[in-house]
């Protein structure tokens, strides 16, 4: 099972990314567990400052933006 984390301090874009990730996971039947990380100390542990960021299995795959659905599909399945 993939471990997916959405890093963000709770802004609108962070929620937008979380919703989009969940939608892609559902539509593609991806076996994944999604967790939102809002604690700034935990976010910085990934050396990320610009949020929202997407982390898949411990690897930061996007940051500072909300990727489109097609790109998200790629980021979640690669």
């Amino acid at each position: 099972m993939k471990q997916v984390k959405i890093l963000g301090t709770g802004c609108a874009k962070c929620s937008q990314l979380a919703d989009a990730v969940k939608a892609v996971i559902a539509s593609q039947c991806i076996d994944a567990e999604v967790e939102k990380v809002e604690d700034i100390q935990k976010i910085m542990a990934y050396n990320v400052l610009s949020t929202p960021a997407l982390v898949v299995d411990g690897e930061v795959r996007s940051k500072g933006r909300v990727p489109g659905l097609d790109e998200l599909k790629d980021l979640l399945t690669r």
Partner: protein
Amino acid sequence: MNSAVEVCPETALKMIGEGALLVDVREREEVAEASFDVPGVMLIPYSEFDERFREIPADRDVIIACNVGERSLMATRFLMHNGYRNAVNMQYGIVRWAEKGFPVKGELKRKQGGCCCGSTSGSSNGTGSCC
């Protein structure tokens, strides 16, 4: 991690006079409108900060500044997390700096914060700040 040290614009100006480095983390379009008119100011946009922060010398006193002091506070904490012991945040940003009559190039139009989401217009609530 300890809290970030914060200084007012007056203290920041004094520190710059004593050799501290001012790092402006506002985005390019903000800097194009108005910028700190001090020698040697370093520009690292917040949206690029986590990629470029190593350009900041770790052995100098460093003052991080933005528009109103919110993004710069996050950037200061980020630097502290990465071992920078001499970084401080300038409270209230270039807005207060300009209000104090300290040197600014250009005309300051944006009086609100930027966004932690890597842009100056990422807010959905119209306040200009989303974090």
